[in-house]
């Protein structure tokens, strides 16, 4: 078993006909993922290397039984693409697009609240269950099947840490990037909840970074609900204070936001926090030994 994506994942790619969409959809298919459809308004009836293209998500689902959508649509149309999939009740929506206006995402997040579709991203690398399915842009060759689950706010940093795990012979059950935008879909807590429930995951790794208070909230959740061992990482110990943090924003998160505060919060609930990606892999190795 894996988390969120499985052998039976069937992907519709929104924005399949764009250069990024085509490149990564074909890589996902080469990995063994069932990429069953594409959606580009106005290009219905075409195909990309044998993958049929539809005008709308609803048509794609009716014709191909897709159960996961993967979005490579440009930022100004991406929120609409998410809503289209959500309204079509696609169970899992993965949005790779970077640069979506936050006002658009606030509307998307409010729509999704209390509804069935699960959103991963935006501004994320997607997810991979090694050996089963790859939905997004995580390079499949750096992963190997195994029993460690990874969740991260950063794309490339995920690759770095997964790569270090694989080099040590530590395989992964599911690796998942939640995205780096201020408003995003499911986060650390929802990921840890699923890792905890997954009989094939023995260890969870969570990769955070400065800003917001996702890590602190995750720490509180771990203390209450997580028995699976967790190893953590926080990027940005040497980063200067963020420019985007306004005063009215600070009232919501208190004094949180620095890498040190996040690492402290995680360590206080028993999470071992590595200071470099290499150290994270070493801690994971030690925890599994």
């Amino acid at each position, binding site marked *: 078993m894996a988390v969120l994506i499985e052998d039976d994942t069937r992907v519709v790619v929104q924005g399949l006909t764009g250069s990024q969409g085509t490149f990564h959809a074909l890589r996902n298919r080469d990995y063994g993922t069932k990429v069953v459809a594409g959606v580009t308004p106005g290009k219905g009836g075409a195909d990309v290397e044998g993958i049929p293209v539809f005008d709308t998500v609803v048509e794609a689902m009716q014709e191909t039984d897709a159960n996961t959508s993967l979005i490579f649509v440009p*930022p100004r149309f991406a929120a609409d693409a998410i809503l289209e999939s959500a309204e079509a009740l696609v169970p899992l929506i993965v949005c790779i697009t970077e640069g979506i206006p936050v006002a658009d995402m606030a509307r998307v997040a409010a729509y999704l609240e209390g509804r069935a579709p699960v959103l991963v991203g935006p501004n994320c690398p997607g997810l991979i269950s090694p050996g089963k399915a790859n939905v997004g*842009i995580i390079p499949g060759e750096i992963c190997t099947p195994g029993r460690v689950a990874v969740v991260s706010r*950063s*794309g490339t940093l995920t690759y770095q840490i997964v790569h270090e795990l694989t080099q040590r012979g530590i395989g992964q059950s599911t690796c998942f990037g939640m995205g780096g935008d201020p*408003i995003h879909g499911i986060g650390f807590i929802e990921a840890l909840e699923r890792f905890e429930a997954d009989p094939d995951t023995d260890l969870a790794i969570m990769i955070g970074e400065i800003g917001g208070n996702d890590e602190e909230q995750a720490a509180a959740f771990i203390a209450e609900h997580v028995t699976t061992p967790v190893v953590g990482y926080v990027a*940005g110990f040497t980063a200067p204070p963020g420019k985007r943090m306004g*005063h009215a924003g600070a*009232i*919501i998160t208190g004094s949180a936001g620095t890498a040190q505060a996040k690492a402290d919060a995680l360590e206080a609930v028993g999470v071992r926090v590595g200071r470099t990606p290499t150290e994270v892999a070493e801690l994971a190795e030690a925890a599994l030994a």
Partner: protein
Amino acid sequence: MDLFEHQGKDLFARYGIRVPRGRVATTPEEAQAAAESFGGQAVVKVQVQAGGRGKGGGIVVAKSPEEAADAARTMLTDGFKGMPVTRILAEEMVDIAGEFYAAITLDRSAKRYLAMVSSEGGMEIEEVAREHPTSLRRTHIDPWLGLRPYHVTWLTGHLPEAAREGTADIMNKLYSVVLGSDVTLAEVNPMALLGDGDVLALDAKVTVDDNALYRQPELEALRSGFFVDPTEARATELGLQYVKLAGRVGIIGNGAGLVMSTLDVVQQAGGSAANFLDVGGGASAELMAAALEVVLSDPDVRSVLVNIFGGITRCDLVAEGILESLKRVEARVPIVVRLDGTNAEEGRRILTEANHPRIVAAATMQEAAQLAADEAA
């Protein structure tokens, strides 16, 4: 993107929020003329994208046009908290009967906008929340419903009777600012009740969502007037995320998390980063070349570390970009390159075949950080 106070007030005024009459001045003479036009007195306010002006001498009440000129001269000459000052705002004095606080901001953990009104104005809002929690009323806004009349009734219900209607009007207009101009923070601190019963914005703190600037051309145009490090300005123009730092190792990476992590690892290897530069996802050869040119143009840089883990970014294009830029600019320092991920083998092969004397290949991030730190020492 943070606006200057006078730009924030211009924006507020466009949505019908009353602000004091004011004039931007870039010389003491202009400040003097502004004070004269307001009947001799003026509040002279330094224009910087930072808080703490009240306590730091950034706001001066001038009793005469000459005092206004003197205050402006000091600000323009001395700067403010280490920042250069190129403009000040001279405003009319207003008759203040009460000071309050109003704001709408994005609450990222709630994934909603948050509206706040406090009966305590002029203080930092964190301090209000800590010291006078009962003076602060807050409510989240569902973007599909908007700010409703019952929200506003609650938000303004603890203010003196005379200030409620004017504040309600300001809250509705602030929400229009947030929606209409893609603003993630619209803060009025203080908001003043005047002797004539009107409520106006004495200050304006406005942050605009960078991701939405494509549909806010008037706000985007303001950026050209901001003071930024020249290297930073060039990087922004090219679509790169760049922050100048104090060290000597120039850093280029893809993805904010990986770049932040690279800064940390370089420091642990005994070095220190000269900058943060994220080329973003899907960087092309041209963008990579531009990134390298930006970093090499910084005279503090003693070595460069290119740390790429390709996902949406293709390492072959990164390698081509590095070689392309070295045809245009001289590699005056060693360039340590570490490539992994999408098309990494192809990228490494391109670099090996080029056999450039300044390019040092590294197998791992840790090794790359060590090499770059040692080269810069």
